[in-house]
């Protein structure tokens, strides 16, 4: 996939517009940040305005939200969920914890940098990020998608060995099936 | 006719019975061979006489010692009595073949056995053939007296007990019959059945009925009618294997013959038919019901046999020609099928102490032929086509339908379902229950197998083509139903005179 805007065909532009305007979110409530999802989705902030809605299973989802700290135990599940999602797929790191560990930076059972393990497209800073910030993050993601630059899923494919190495450092009893695309 | 004569039926077996010990002195094997020869001759006798009866259409009447009836004693070989006599002699031969090796090592026992069998044969055929009521009584006594030791043959406690019960009840039968005969003789002054039949109207009503009741009771005991058949299950189950078949195919036939003669020929009481029918129904239901609850094979077969006797009484109690034909058919079937069941059944429980049904579980694989033949017999007796039992049942049902006895049809069919239940339980057990290993299967000897195969062949053949013997039944029924003809043939002069 070529990333410069000039060479893109009209079909790609339409498709990217559709991808941007219809984001199905697999809200994986890993950490305390998950509490900010309900106000984002419900009447006060109403993310559905922007075509953002929940999806029940990874098969249907486009966006994986990592809501806050990621315990080593849930990392495995998150990776699994991500790998089951279908391309193109995006990850939004949510809150400080996903950037550098946040208040859990020295905890024995959380990971500090999410992008060592998974390809993050957009980070939303804050502890907690308020719904406004969340929506701003989504807007940023939408811009990236429209520009064809939200290529986390490609990075994951291309650098799978790097991610696997880091993942296996954390997850000792590795029983995951192979990532097959 | 020199060679074949009805008298030989009675005389020869009696003679052989008495001479058998002497034969035994000459050569041990003779006690086995001679009865067989005798039976073969009896069958020959039957064939010859029967062909004559069929060709002339008249019964053969033999006068003993040259005295003409009603004074003299006579034997009447009609299509009816001759048919039963034929069945008895053929079954006798088969029993003989079956039990040829019976107790071969114990000379005394086998001698006893064959003598008794001879006596039973003589008595049974005598009962069937005689035209004289007192002689009938005498022959019945011969049957009874030879049956007692057969029941107690094994000299065990149970056998003796069964025999004793038989004896007690048999004594009642003797008394009742004798009293009845005395009553008749005192009123009519004759013992000839034809003449009694002719002049029964002369008897005062009360005495006639009393005599009828007494004879009915006595003959009912011999015919295994409920509730007079308490002796029968014990006797059947305690007697040696082949004797069960003897009882079913010979003595029971004699017993039912007496009661048929009583109702059909001797007396002119219409209620007699209904009484016979009613008692038949009760016998059928009670016996088959009890057979359902039996745990011992032979007792089950015995009760089933009683049920068949009930069926016979029903058939003759209906008193139409079709019903009597059906009755003859059932009589034939009962002899053949029940013998097959007794023959094969006794091999199945050969080594078992208590002869329990559960002792023969799994024998289907151990004794394939015997088990198969038992199964075939079971299929036949419950009336599954294309075996012979079906045609008998069908003709009985059609006869009852013709007489508007719809409830009776339903009853018979319900009882047939009960029959299916208990027979199929045994057959299922034979083939599909696990072999306990407690009892060694005993292989039937070749002669026993032969007999069973012959019986099975008869069952199948008659089932496939009932017309083969159907005409005999019709003729027999004709002979039985036509009372006037009977009287005319026995007493030509009197009958004409009366008219």
């Amino acid at each position, binding site marked *: 996939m070529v990333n410069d805007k000039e060479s893109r065909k009209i079909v790609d532009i339409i498709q990217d517009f559709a991808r941007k305007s219809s984001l199905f979110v697999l809200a994986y409530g890993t950490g305390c940040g998950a509490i900010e999802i309900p106000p984002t989705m419900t009447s006060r902030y109403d993310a559905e305005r922007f075509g953002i809605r929940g999806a029940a299973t990874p*098969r249907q989802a486009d966006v994986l939200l990592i809501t806050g700290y990621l315990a080593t135990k849930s990392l495995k599940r998150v990776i699994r969920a991500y790998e089951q999602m279908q391309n193109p797929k995006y990850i939004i790191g949510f809150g400080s914890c996903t950037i550098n560990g946040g208040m859990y930076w020295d905890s024995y059972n959380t990971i500090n940098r999410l992008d060592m393990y998974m390809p993050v497209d957009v980070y939303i800073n804050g502890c907690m990020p308020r719904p406004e910030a969340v929506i701003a993050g989504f807007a940023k993601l939408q811009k990236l998608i429209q520009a064809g630059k939200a290529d986390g899923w490609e990075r994951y494919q291309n650098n799978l060995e790097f991610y696997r190495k880091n993942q296996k450092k954390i997850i000792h009893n590795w029983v995951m099936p192979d990532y097959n*695309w | 006719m020199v060679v074949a004569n009805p008298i030989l039926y009675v005389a020869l077996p009696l003679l052989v019975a008495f001479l058998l010990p002497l034969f035994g002195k000459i050569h041990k094997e003779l006690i086995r061979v001679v009865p067989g020869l005798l039976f073969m001759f009896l069958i020959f006798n039957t064939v010859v006489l029967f062909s004559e009866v069929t060709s002339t259409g008249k019964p053969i009447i033999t006068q003993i010692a040259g005295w003409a009836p009603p004074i003299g004693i006579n034997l009447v070989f009609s299509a009816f009595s001759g048919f039963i006599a034929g069945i008895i002699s053929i079954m006798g031969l088969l029993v003989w073949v079956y039990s040829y090796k019976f107790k071969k090592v114990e000379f005394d026992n086998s001698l006893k056995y064959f003598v008794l069998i001879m006596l039973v044969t003589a008595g049974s055929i005598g009962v069937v053939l005689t035209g004289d009521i007192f002689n009938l009584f005498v022959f019945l006594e011969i049957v009874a007296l030879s049956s007692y030791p057969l029941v107690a043959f094994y000299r065990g406690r149970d056998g003796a007990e069964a025999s004793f019960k038989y004896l007690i*009840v048999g004594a009642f039968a003797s008394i009742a019959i004798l009293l009845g005969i005395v009553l008749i003789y005192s009123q009519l002054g004759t013992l000839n059945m034809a003449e009694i039949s002719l002049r029964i109207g002369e008897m005062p009503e009360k005495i006639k009925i009393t005599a009828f009741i007494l004879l009915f009771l006595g003959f009912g005991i011999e015919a295994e009618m409920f509730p007079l058949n308490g002796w029968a299950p014990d006797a059947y189950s305690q007697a040696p294997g082949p004797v069960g078949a003897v009882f079913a195919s010979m003595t029971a036939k004699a017993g039912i013959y007496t009661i048929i003669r009583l109702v059909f020929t001797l007396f002119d009481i219409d209620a007699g038919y209904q009484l016979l029918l009613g008692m038949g129904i009760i016998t059928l239901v009670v016996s088959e019901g*009890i057979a359902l*609850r039996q745990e011992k094979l032979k007792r089950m077969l015995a009760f089933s046999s009683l049920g068949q006797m009930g069926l016979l009484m029903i058939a003759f109690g209906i008193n139409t020609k079709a019903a009597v034909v059906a009755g003859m058919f059932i009589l034939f079937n009962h002899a053949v099928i029940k013998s097959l069941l007794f023959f094969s059944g006794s091999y199945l429980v050969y080594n078992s102490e208590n002869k329990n049904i559960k002792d023969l579980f799994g024998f289907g694989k151990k004794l394939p032929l015997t088990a198969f033949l038992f199964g075939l017999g079971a299929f036949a007796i419950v009336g*599954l086509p294309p075996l012979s039992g079906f045609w008998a049942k069908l003709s009985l049902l059609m006869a009852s339908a013709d007489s508007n006895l719809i409830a009776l049809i339903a009853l018979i*069919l319900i009882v047939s379902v009960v029959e299916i239940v208990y027979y199929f339980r045994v057959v*299922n057990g034979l083939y*599909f229950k696990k072999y306990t290993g407690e009892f060694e299967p005993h292989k039937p000897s070749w002669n026993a197998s032969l007999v069973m195969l012959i019986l099975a062949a008869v069952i199948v053949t008659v089932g496939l083509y009932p017309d083969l013997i*159907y005409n005999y039944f019709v003729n027999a029924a004709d002979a039985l139903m036509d009372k006037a003809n009977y009287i005319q043939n026995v007493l030509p002069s009197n009958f004409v005179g009366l008219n």
Partner: protein
Amino acid sequence: MSNLVIILAIFGWAILTYLAFKINKTLGNVFVGVLALALPAYFFTYTPSDYTVSVMGMSLQFGFTSFASLFAMLVVVLSSFALLYSIPYMNKKDRLGWFYMNFMFSVGGMMGILMSKDLVSLFIFWEIMTWSSYLIVIYQGKKVNKVGLKYMIFSAIGAYAMLMAIVLINKWSGNVNIEQFFASFPNYSSAAKLLSSLLLLTGFGVKSALMPLHVWAPGAYTKSPMSYTAVFSGALSKMGIYGMALVAVNLYVHSNMPIMGEVIAWAGAITAVLATFWAIFQNDIRKLLAYSSIGQLGYIAVGLGIGTELSVFAGLYLAILHGLFKGVLWMVVGAIEHRTGKTDFRDISGLIKKMPFTFFVALVAIIALAGMPPLSGFVGKWMLYESMITSNHFIMVLFIFLSSTAAFLYCFHFLYGLFLGQQEDEFLKDVKEVPVLMMIPMGLISLSLIAFGTFPGLIFKPIAQAMSTLGFENVTWRMSSLTNAWGNSMFLKPANFMFMAVFVFFLIIITVVNHKKTKKVGTKDIANGGEPIRDEDNLHYSVDIYRPFYRVISPIMKYKVETFYKRISKGIEEFFQFFRRIYSGNGQTYALYVVIFLTALLILSSTIF
């Protein structure tokens, strides 16, 4: 060549086959194969001629009516397929000669029933069919007393009811000829009409497993080898339908007793509903299909009971069709049993991976069973519904609709539980597709099911001929359209072709688009909250899957007819136990009986004589 020869030839061949298996298994199989091929070859080429045998003063007549030959066609086709199928299926079992002999006996029995023109020979062949099927039911030796004896008892009750009817008919009509019975039936008194027809119905109802008399069916269908059950449930139970059609149509419809037809129809409707409910909750495939068979026979009874032209036509069509698709389904079960040795939903899953052909034929048969367009089952369902609606059976139509909607539940359960769902490598390791000889029968019947879906006229012709025997002359039929009594029509070709066209169009689209990036993944790779599933985790959800529905209808399901029968039989046994005490084994008692009997007779002599 006379008709009787066919039957005798089959019986003779049965015995020869038995002997052949005694010599050599291969030889025996050859014998089986020869019959399987010769039977249809002979049946479809010969010209029937009547034959009369005289037995015991009754004349037994043999010959085909066109109605009987419709059913004979089903019997011949299904039996020859089932015999072919048996050869590989039964290969590893023992006592094959016995099995095939009884198999052929029952085939001969069925042919005999259809050839009989009088009631006695019908009864004889009926009983031959009954005991030979009984011998096969107990052939595997499982639960012989519980299942086999139950089958035999019910069959006997039915058969004896029939026998009673036959002897009564013989009395009332003067002979046992079937046609003359129908001719003289209107002259019967009303009690005689009721009695004779009800008894006949009981007889036929047992074999066709109508509701209060169905108790034997689940066990018997389950316990016989599947290759025989295909015939048992497909063709043998149709003998009951055959008789019922004769009774319902010839006696009730044409003799102005429609109320009895209603009784049959209602019995059928209730059977259809309850049996379907029971089928839904089964966890054994064979039980499921057995109950389903009972339910399907209920539809047929409804069609025959209503007795209009369309409904009888629908009933006959469904009867033939049920024989075909249930034949396939039992063969499918047999195939699964053959390859996996299991028949319980607990043990089986994901067979589509290893047995795709079997899955395909099962799918076809199930769609036909469920009555879905575009396959043949729908044609029958359509005619049945239309006939009910046009004849104002509006409550009954709801029962039937409830039943056929509920049937979707077990249809799904069947396909999903066996073929779909989680694929367990451990379980599927040794499974492979069935041998070709088993595929051929299943495949051919499935093809016919597909063909009849669009061109039911292929089979309408013999049905229309059969209808003329039943007194519906000149039934009009068309190759691929249906019409009801109000003149509303259903055109199958446009409907089915439209469906297929759209299907294929979208199939192309969905396959072509993004084809390279469409991956096939295993069933362990499922979205389950991110937890990877290990090989030993079995997430197959196929046992007790309809609990919510059970909670809804549990008030009905509490009552089982079987309990009622159990109570009756227990009562009877206890009653006879009482009798048994009469024989105390004591000589004095017996003597007492004699005295009592004598006294009673003497006392009662004045009243008796």
